[in-house]
């Protein structure tokens, strides 16, 4: 409860700054209109008219809230104008990509930890893959897969996986290597096999690292899914909402989609956090 006041203060400050910026950025259009009509602009007029434009440069917070409410609750969720509908399309691609990326990341990490050859051959490529801008890769993946007749969820999931496997890979390599000398020595004194060492020591030790990277990975997967919706001229998904919004100057629609995406990402990260807490608690690793 003590934290409530500072949190609300920061929130209020952001809203105030946002309103200020909206007035400032949207005023140009009003001045242009007034100049054309040959009239003067009063302060009251400026304040009221910058808040209600159809296509403002920067929509005011209440306009975005209105857009959000309209998109989330004002439509049937099967409607093409419903943010729930578009959010679901993007979410399903995100989850598929996240599962794909997590599986790939863990598998590669296991290989890298157990094989020096894999460490030297795979790791540089994994790092290189992340230095290529996703915006450059995404259209190629979509086009190549479309030429093979693969459309819809899978290409988007692959691009989401492309972004989300990396944090999982790095985290799991670190986690599987977390056991120190003494813990490995102990298993040596039992003459334990490599498999036993993996299942009984390395894998459980890596759990905290895995969850930390899953949080990064799931947010990255969402970004990947949205980016994947941009280049193909998709008509469904949050990415498509962003794209059509920018085509037609529907800034309110863009901001509403952005906020939906942000809220979605935050919820996904929080869900992973809850699973993390429950799992570590059941494992006895959290107190």
């Amino acid at each position, binding site marked *: 409860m003590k934290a409530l006041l500072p949190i609300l203060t920061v929130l209020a400050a952001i809203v105030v700054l946002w309103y200020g910026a909206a007035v400032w950025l949207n005023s140009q259009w009003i001045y242009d209109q007034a100049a054309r009509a040959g009239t003067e602009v009063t302060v009251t007029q400026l304040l009221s008219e910058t808040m209600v434009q159809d296509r403002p440069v920067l929509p005011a917070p209440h306009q975005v809230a209105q857009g959000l409410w309209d998109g989330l609750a004002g439509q049937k969720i099967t409607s093409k104008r419903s943010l729930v509908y578009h959010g679901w399309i993007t979410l399903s691609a995100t989850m598929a990509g996240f599962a794909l990326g997590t599986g790939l990341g863990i598998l590669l990490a296991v290989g890298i930890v157990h094989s020096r050859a894999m460490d030297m051959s795979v790791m540089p490529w994994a790092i290189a893959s992340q230095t290529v801008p996703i915006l450059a890769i995404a259209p190629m993946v979509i086009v190549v897969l479309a030429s093979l007749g693969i459309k819809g969820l899978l290409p988007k999931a692959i691009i989401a996986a492309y972004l989300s496997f990396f944090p999982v890979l790095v985290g799991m390599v670190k986690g599987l290597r977390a056991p120190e000398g*003494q813990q490995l020595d*102990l298993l*040596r004194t039992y*003459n334990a096999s490599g498999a036993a060492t993996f299942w009984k020591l390395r894998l459980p030790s890596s*759990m905290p690292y895995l969850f930390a990277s899953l949080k990064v990975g799931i947010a990255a997967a969402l970004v990947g899914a949205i980016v994947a919706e941009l280049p193909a001229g998709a008509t469904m998904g949050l990415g498509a909402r962003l794209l059509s919004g920018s085509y037609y100057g529907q800034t309110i629609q863009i901001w509403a989609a952005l906020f939906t995406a942000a809220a979605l990402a935050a919820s996904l990260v929080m869900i992973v956090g809850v699973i993390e807490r429950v799992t570590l608690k059941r*494992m006895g690793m959290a107190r």
Partner: protein
Amino acid sequence: MKAPVIEAKDLNLTFETNDGPVHALKDVNLTIDQGEFVSFIGPSGCGKTTFLRCIAALEQPTGGVLRVNSMTPEHARQARSYGYVFQAAGLYPWRTIAGNVKLPLEIMGYAKAEQDARVEKVLSLVDLQGFGKKFPWQLSGGMQQRASIARALAFDADILLMDEPFGALDEIVRDKLNEELLKLWARTGKTIGFVTHSIPEAVYLSTKIVVMSPRPGRITDVIDSTLPRERPLEIRDSPEFLAIAHRVREGLRAGHAYEE
């Protein structure tokens, strides 16, 4: 006569480092018989831990002969001839105390019922009955170390190697654990190799004290204790005890004089 449990002949171990070779062990000769309690004492860098690790096949000697139960250390390790207790308890935080003690039994493929029976038995041996369901963080440092001893006792190794197991504990807890360790040794009849840098601890526990000195790591004195096997804590005030402690101290000092 029975073959010795551990036998070292002209054992050498040289680590190659960037600053040149380091003689961790030089011409170490030692015989340990069945049922002995042998302490290794000396300043850091004298090779006492390294010697213990050689016995456990965690280090490879670079020269000489080492036999454990008449096998090479590597074969002895594969035959699971010894239990090893490290300085840190090193319990898995994600396993209960019982789960930790069970770890070697799972790895060695004991039957489920046998595992539970053994866990029960060794936990009572280290006076931890009733703590099986607790997690390590719920136990004090001394109790954690006892659990790690139980873990080393859970399978049928007749050698127990202990590397400064009580080094991180305070004096009072250490006294109590020393007393318990002696009882445990009497009950199980294991051969124990015990690394320490505490003179009273070495004298109180051992039937044989091996005094070592550093650079190069070597044995400067081997003292056969004249104390009886039955040892109450008060024995540490007896003249006999003090005489042995004195000889250990002399041995440690001699090792240093050699260096200067």
